[in-house]
């Protein structure tokens, strides 16, 4: 499951922009501008829709919501605990 989530998130990021050289799972996609204030709403909805979860304001402001690795952990936890 972790890998499915990871590939889905990476796919969304790649559709937004070519990933910078050296960008890895710990890379900050907000700071890099890959997901910007214009793209964030659709990004969240795509994650919510694909994994049937709900992403809250607090989630968006958390450190996890900045890297692929963090998002995979956040989404996995929501799926496992049935927080939707």
């Amino acid at each position, binding site marked *: 499951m972790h890998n499915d989530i990871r590939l889905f998130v990476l*796919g969304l990021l790649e559709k937004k*922009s*070519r990933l910078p050289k050296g960008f890895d799972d710990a890379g900050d996609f907000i700071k*890099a501008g890959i997901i*910007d*204030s*214009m*793209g964030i709403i*659709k990004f969240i909805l795509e994650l919510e829709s694909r994994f049937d979860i709900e992403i809250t304001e607090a989630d968006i402001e958390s450190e996890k919501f900045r890297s692929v690795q963090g998002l995979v952990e956040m989404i996995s936890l929501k799926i496992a605990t049935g927080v939707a």
Partner: protein
Amino acid sequence: MGPLIGSVFQYTEYDVMSSMAKIAPTFFAHARSTPDKQAVWCEGVTANYQELAQLVCRWSNAMASNGVKRGDHIGVILPNSIEFVALMLVAADLGVVLVPLNTSLIPAAVHRAFEVAEVKHVVSTAVLLQALLALNSGLNFSMVDGLWLSVDEVIDGDTVRDVRLLAELLQDVPLDAQPLNAALEEDALILTMTSGSTGDPKPIILTQRTKFNRAIAAIELYGISEQDKTLAATPLYHSLAERLVLIPLLTGGTSVLMSKFSSIAWLQCVAEHAVTFTIAVSSQLKQIAEELASNADACDIASLRCIVSSSALLDSSVKADLLTKFDCEFHECYGASEIAIASNLDGVSARAKLQSVGIAAPDVDVKIIGKNDEVLPIGLAGEIVCKTAMLFGGYYKRPDLTQAVMCGEYFRTGDMGKLDEDGFLYYLGRTKDIIISGGINIYPADIEVVINAYASVMESAAFAFPDERLGEVVAVAIVPVNKPEFDLRQLRFHCCERLADFQQPRKFFVVDELPKNGMGKLMKFQLVKTFATKG
């Protein structure tokens, strides 16, 4: 005359052929005189003038020998990249027309845009083409029967069209391929997609002459030379970034192109590349000013010689703040996609006339007209109209719409304004139904069509909602079929699937009815008044 004009006309072969397009020859002239100079940087990849010219010549020749002809329309779905820059010059050389699209458009919207703009060939990336041409998309791209090109990788899996790889196409062309010089000044170079009131795409024609004139106007207005390093931090499917890339390539300078904007990345980019000139969207400048306020010591922006705010007007307070933060020449410009720059406010004037958007740019005539198209005296408010050499070439195959936006030789901006006794223009508001978010024009009709198609919605109206960061965002008032059972979350997923990222509504207001006048006409200003001031 600026430095560019001198360098263009020392090449007499172009001087005697006045109808020949000037963009590609001017670029190639710089490539001959300064082959080793850095032409463009984009996210760690660089090309000097010789390398870029070689790519352009080979690509142009490869396109020609693969059935791409002068006048053909090429759909372009590319992120900011050196390939996109090269493709603009290929189009300028070959006389083809680029139809650049927002990379976040959903496949159905791309299909519609291709139909309206009569796209024959497509250039994109493997990732984006794979999503567009998926076998299960239900879309038939048979009308786009020319060349489909991926600039980076081979596509995995089956697709509804065969896609060639750029590298493979270039293999057949010698390294010393020469420019084709096939374009004329009157040829369309870019079709920029906008929307009409019905939500249908309404492409704006920008000819080679218009694009050249617009770049020259900026070069002269802001005194740009080959010494300048010009930063573009907006997407190349917008005319602003196209102009910002052409400016250095037509002056022998250096283009610095960011693939995505963030205020931190922008400041790092300025410092790292010693950027001297840029035009930024006002909402970007606001974010940059905030970053500078919190982290001023870490930001070296001393290289900046001139900075211009564009696309949406700055609040007076932000303008005043920026004037103190940027210790360089500062301008604000007012304009529209159809006319480029209409007025210019320089930093000195800005201090005296903070509320103004400046005086008419050189060779632009600005007037204020009343309801019967009569020219209004100084101080009276009316519609802003402009006469300019930077005028667009009309809406593609819509002479009716083109005629409707012209008042003689003057373009009707759809904006309200007034002039003062010194010729300074004041912007007072918009009459066109449009939302400007982060510098991007969003058409409410595009949003309403999608939301009204949702079975649980009886009717809806999209309108502009003020936003700290983006200036405005999309708000929607919805009348559900059955209010108690209405599921907003499902509607948001519906919008997610059918609208691009910049079109996603941020604010939803579920109402019993929309405000309408006695004739049943929607009074959108009432929605704005009721909701857009409450937060």
